[in-house]
């Protein structure tokens, strides 16, 4: 791991990647998107891309800043790859404009853009050795031979592939190929690297390990990364910010914490992690809280998060499973029957570190709650068909309207 201080805040709860506290410099916050003076490195302005009748990207505007690790997250067909390909220059926007470093990219072919891309399939040249694959980009620029040799060697060192320099791609494992692709796309020292599902073809263990490496390399070289992924966990652990995409449009942009804790729509809430969604009507809407009556939940929901909605309007309250506590006794702090409901345990999935409980409420609504297994399995107090109390704190819920 690099010794460089991590310039950005990483939510400790969201994943395995995060520097030790000693290496962190908490004073420096990397949040250029909150700085009105910061100039975005990439500006996407009202970009739309149509293929015939199909709108792949629908009126997208985004600003991405230098040094960011920015993820485009979405399911298949959400337009994330098309957006990336427009940044690379393989597709031209039907409408709208893209600026990279202040330069309008309209009509600039891929080979003249200050951008490199790592392809999902890696697209390694099968007839060239690892070394020649990495050297390819430098040869195109007419870099002197000696310099090519040293830079290729440095790059292979960085991705730990020096012993494989003379091999052909088909003699490498999937993980090694991925690293060749990374080395090849970084050797030209691009200011911006586009990565299309960089870890998609790797197995789970290798993926987690490579996430570390990607982040380290990105920090070491100070390159701006724009990553396309469908894997929300991957996006959460690596990104400075995430843009969640749905049907060609951006559903939400924010840091991993913002996206997870404060989703702005049911789509985002359900796409990232799992969530319990209670349908109801607003009873009280005050600046510091909302009260929602929900027949589905079987109780009133008191939420400190306010949606500025008129009383009586229809809404949903999203509560994450880990914020629901599950007890056999009625919780003491039960506040006038708010945020407390009862149900029967139907399913328990024991995952080792945590257990997932599926609880049926009186309304028939199935609720998901997770609890860490702080005691041993055999001493687990709650079991199938137990009647239990579910409760959550006022800050747990998020009020959503669509």
């Amino acid at each position, binding site marked *: 791991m690099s010794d460089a201080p991590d310039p950005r805040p990483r939510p400790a709860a969201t994943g395995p990647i995060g520097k030790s506290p000693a290496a962190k410099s908490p004073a420096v916050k990397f949040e250029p998107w909150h700085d009105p003076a910061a100039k975005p490195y990439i500006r996407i302005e009202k970009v739309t891309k149509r293929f015939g009748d199909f709108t792949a990207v629908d009126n997208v505007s985004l600003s991405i800043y230098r040094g960011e690790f920015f993820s485009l997250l979405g399911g298949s067909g959400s337009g994330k790859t098309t957006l990336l390909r427009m940044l*690379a*220059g*393989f597709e031209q926007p039907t409408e709208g404009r893209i600026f990279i470093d202040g330069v309008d990219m309209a009509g600039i*072919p*891929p*080979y003249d853009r200050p*951008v*490199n*891309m790592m*392809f999902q*399939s890696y*697209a*390694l*040249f*099968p*007839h060239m050795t690892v070394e020649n694959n990495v050297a*390819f*980009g430098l040869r*195109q*620029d007419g870099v002197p031979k000696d310099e090519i040799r040293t830079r290729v060697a440095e790059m292979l060192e960085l991705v730990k592939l020096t012993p494989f320099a003379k091999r052909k791609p*088909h*003699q490498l494992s999937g993980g090694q190929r991925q690293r060749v692709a990374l080395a*090849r*796309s970084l050797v*030209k020292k691009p200011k911006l690297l586009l990565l299309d599902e960089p870890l998609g073809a790797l197995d789970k263990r290798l993926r987690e390990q490579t996430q570390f490496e990607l982040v380290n390399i990105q920090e070491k070289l100070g390159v701006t990364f724009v990553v396309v992924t469908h894997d929300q966990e991957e996006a959460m652990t690596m990104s400075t910010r995430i843009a969640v995409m749905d049907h060609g449009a951006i559903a939400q942009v924010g840091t991993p914490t913002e996206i997870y804790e404060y989703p702005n729509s049911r789509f985002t809430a359900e796409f990232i992690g799992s969530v319990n969604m209670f349908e109801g009507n607003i009873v009280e809407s005050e600046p510091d809280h909302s009260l929602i009556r929900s027949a589905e939940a079987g109780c009133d929901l008191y939420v400190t998060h306010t949606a500025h909605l008129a009383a009586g309007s229809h809404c949903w309250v999203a509560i994450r499973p880990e914020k629901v506590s599950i007890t056999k006794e009625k919780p003491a702090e039960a506040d006038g029957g708010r945020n407390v409901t009862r149900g029967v345990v139907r399913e328990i999935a024991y995952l080792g570190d945590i257990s997932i409980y599926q609880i049926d409420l009186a309304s028939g609504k199935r609720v998901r709650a997770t609890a860490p297994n702080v005691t041993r399995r055999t001493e687990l107090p709650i079991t199938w068909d137990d009647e239990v109390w579910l409760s959550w704190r006022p800050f747990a819920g998020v009020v959503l309207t669509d």
Partner: protein
Amino acid sequence: MPVPPPSAAPQPSAVPPSVAPRTLKDRVLRVTRRLGLTGRGGVILGPYAWLVLFFFIPFLIVLKISVAEPAVGIPPFTKLIEWVDGGLDVHIRFSGFQALFDDDLYVLAYLNSLKIAFVSTLCCLFIGYPMAYAIATAPEKRRGPLLMLIILPFWTSFLIRVYAWMSILKDEGLLNNLLLSLGIIHEPLKILYTDLAVYIGITYSYLPFMILPLYATLEKMDHTLLEAAADLGAKPWKAFLTITLPLSLPGIVAGSLLVFIPAVGEFVIPSLLGGSDTLMIGRELWNLFFNSRDWPSASAVAIALLAFLVGPIMIFQHFQGRDQDKGAAR
């Protein structure tokens, strides 16, 4: 790891050993098993039998004739093995092969055939590559019809197509009339019965054999490789030279050999389109067989031609094998 051989035969235990096979199927299976034939062996047997019957045996016959001596009679050559006075008499004469070197006509004909075949192959490559590339990069639904157009000439007899060229290329033919009427030339061009006509004929006839293998390699090429090259700063022509061209090499080799090998022994095109001085080994072979009725010499010419062509065929095999290795490794 030992893998049980795939077998179409039922388990031997299914047939009790004491009971004689009743059906024909059982009997056939028993015989094939006894011969050590598994299902896979049986499948391969077909092509092998075909090759032995229609290639290897005829080749042995030709080889046998090539070491006999010409004789008046039917067949017009001496017997290889004869019973004379109760003893076995073996006649092996190399006079047929001797003639190849005695008369430089044959050496010249060989060389000229190689030259014509080589130039025609190059022409096919230069015309065929852009065509194959255009088809391979065309929208998917248009590729089928375009390929059909390449194959369409095969629906007309080869001879008729060569005759058509005669009427195009002759002094008062379509081409000369067109050029004369346009005022580009004032005297008819002498094309028919020259080497040029032979080049045109061979290039035209064998072009599909160049295009099809080229198309096959170009079509399966991963398009993202070109995108990757462009992304790394390669302009389109540079990407073509460094990526497309080397990766289509197996197609180039296959197409070139498919054109070159039959073109060397081509007989019909030089006889119909070529002049009397167009020396090609196929024609000399025909002359020896049918005019001189010297079957041993003609067979010797054929054997020598085969020997010449084994080289290119082996190169072809080498490339094919390499390609398959790569495919297997993936």
